[in-house]
C-alpha cells in the first residue's frame, strides 16, 4: 500500500487535517520529523520518525516544514532521488529573489521591486521607490518589515547590516505596504481553493494566485495578493501556508484538495519503480524560458537592470 509522508517539525492543526483527509481517502499518511536524523543519499532519504520506526517507507512527501533552511535542503534531497513531492516548487527551495525573478519573467504582476545586497543599496532603493516601502529579507524565515519613513528605514536596514552576518543584508525592497489590503490564497494543484478570510475576492485575485503557482511549479503554496492602485499584484508567497482558518473558495477544504492530488500523483507513479525516473509527471519547476538549460535561474539576465548594487525588476 502506498504511503504518504508529511514532512513537518511537529504535527500542527494543518498536518493533522492532511493526515485525516488522506486517511479518509484510504491512504496511509505518517509524519516525517527529521530532527536529529542523518540524511543518507538513498531512494528514501527521509526515514520515518523514531516513533514510526519499522513502518512503511513513504512514496510521496508533502512539504510542511516551516523552518525553510532545513525544509529546502530536505526537499531538494528528496527531489534528487526522484521521489515525488508536494511542495511549493521554486519557493520550496529558493528564496524571495528566486521567486520574484521567476514571477517577473512569467509576466505575473508584481510591485515595483529592487534587490539590494548592501545597506547602502537598500536605502537607495527605498529612496527611489518612496515611502512607504517594505523590506522583504531573502530568507522566508524572516518576516517583511514596513518602512514607513526614512527614520524607520535607516534603523531597520542599518540594524540588520551591523548585527547580521551578511545574509540578513540581502533583501528585496518593494514599493508600498500590503497591510490591510492583501489576501493569502492557498493554491493546490493549480487551483486556488481557499483564502485567509480577507476581503471577499473577485475572480482576478484567485486567478493571479494560480498564475503565480504555475510560474513557480508549485503544487501547494500560499500566494499573497495585494490590491494596489494599479490592480492586484503578487506581493509574496508562503512556501508552507497555514490553512486552519482558511475559507474555502469552492466548497472543498484545502486538506481534501491535497489528498486528491496525492492520490493522483501516486496513481501516476505506480508503474514507475526506478529510483531515478526521468519521466516524473511533475512539471518542470518553472515554465520553459524562465530557467536556463542547466536548470539554474539566470538571474542576471532576468533582472531588468543592475545599477549601483540594486537590481531593478520590470
Amino acid at each position, binding site marked *: 500500500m502506498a504511503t504518504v509522508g508529511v514532512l513537518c517539525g*511537529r*504535527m*500542527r*492543526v494543518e498536518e*493533522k487535517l492532511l493526515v485525516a483527509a488522506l486517511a479518509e481517502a484510504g491512504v496511509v499518511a505518517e509524519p516525517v520529523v527529521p530532527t536529529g536524523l542523518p540524511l543518507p543519499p538513498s531512494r528514501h532519504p527521509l526515514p520515518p520518525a523514531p516513533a514510526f520506526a519499522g513502518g512503511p517507507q513513504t512514496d510521496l512527501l508533502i512539504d510542511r516544514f516551516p523552518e525553510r533552511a532545513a525544509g529546502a535542503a530536505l526537499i531538494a534531497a528528496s527531489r534528487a532521488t526522484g521521489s515525488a513531492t508536494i511542495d511549493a516548487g521554486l519557493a520550496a527551495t529558493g528564496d524571495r529573489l528566486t521567486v520574484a525573478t521567476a514571477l517577473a519573467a512569467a509576466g505575473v504582476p508584481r510591485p515595483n521591486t529592487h534587490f539590494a545586497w548592501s545597506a547602502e543599496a537598500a536605502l537607495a532603493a527605498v529612496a527611489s521607490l518612496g515611502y512607504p516601502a517594505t523590506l522583504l529579507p531573502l530568507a522566508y524565515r524572516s518576516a517583511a*518589515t514596513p518602512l514607513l519613513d526614512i527614520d524607520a528605514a535607516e534603523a*531597520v536596514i542599518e*540594524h540588520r547590516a551591523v*548585527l547580521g552576518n551578511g545574509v540578513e543584508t540581502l533583501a528585496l525592497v518593494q514599493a508600498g505596504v500590503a497591510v490591510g489590503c492583501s489576501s493569502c490564497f492557498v493554491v493546490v494543484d493549480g487551483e486556488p481553493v481557499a483564502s485567509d478570510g480577507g476581503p471577499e475576492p473577485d475572480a482576478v485575485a484567485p486567478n493571479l494566485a494560480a498564475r503565480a503557482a504555475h510560474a513557480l511549479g508549485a503544487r501547494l503554496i500560499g500566494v499573497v495578493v495585494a490590491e494596489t492602485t494599479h490592480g492586484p499584484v503578487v506581493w509574496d508567497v508562503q512556501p508552507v501556508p497555514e490553512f486552519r482558518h482558511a475559507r474555502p473558495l469552492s466548497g472543498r477544504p484545502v486538506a481534501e484538495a491535497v489528498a486528491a492530488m496525492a492520490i493522483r500523483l501516486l496513481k501516476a507513479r505506480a508503474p514507475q519503480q526506478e529510483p531515478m525516473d526521468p519521466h516524473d509527471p511533475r512539471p518542470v519547476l518553472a515554465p520553459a524560458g524562465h530557467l536556463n538549460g542547466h536548470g539554474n535561474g539566470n538571474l542576471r539576465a532576468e533582472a531588468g537592470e543592475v545599477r549601483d548594487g540594486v537590481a531593478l525588476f520590470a
Partner: protein
Amino acid sequence: MTGTCPECAAEFELSGVEQGEIVPCPECGVELEVLNANPVQLGLAPEEGEDWGE
C-alpha cells in the same frame, strides 16, 4: 483544568499552573505560555531570537 494547544488543538489537563509559566504541549511538544491561569488560556511561547529591529 483543561487547556487547548493553539498549535495542534490538543486538549490536555493542567494543574497548579501560574500566569506566565511555560508548559510543553504533551501532544506536539511546542512550548506554551500560560496567558491566563483561571480560566486557562494558552499561547505560543515567544521564541528567543534576533528581532532585527522589526
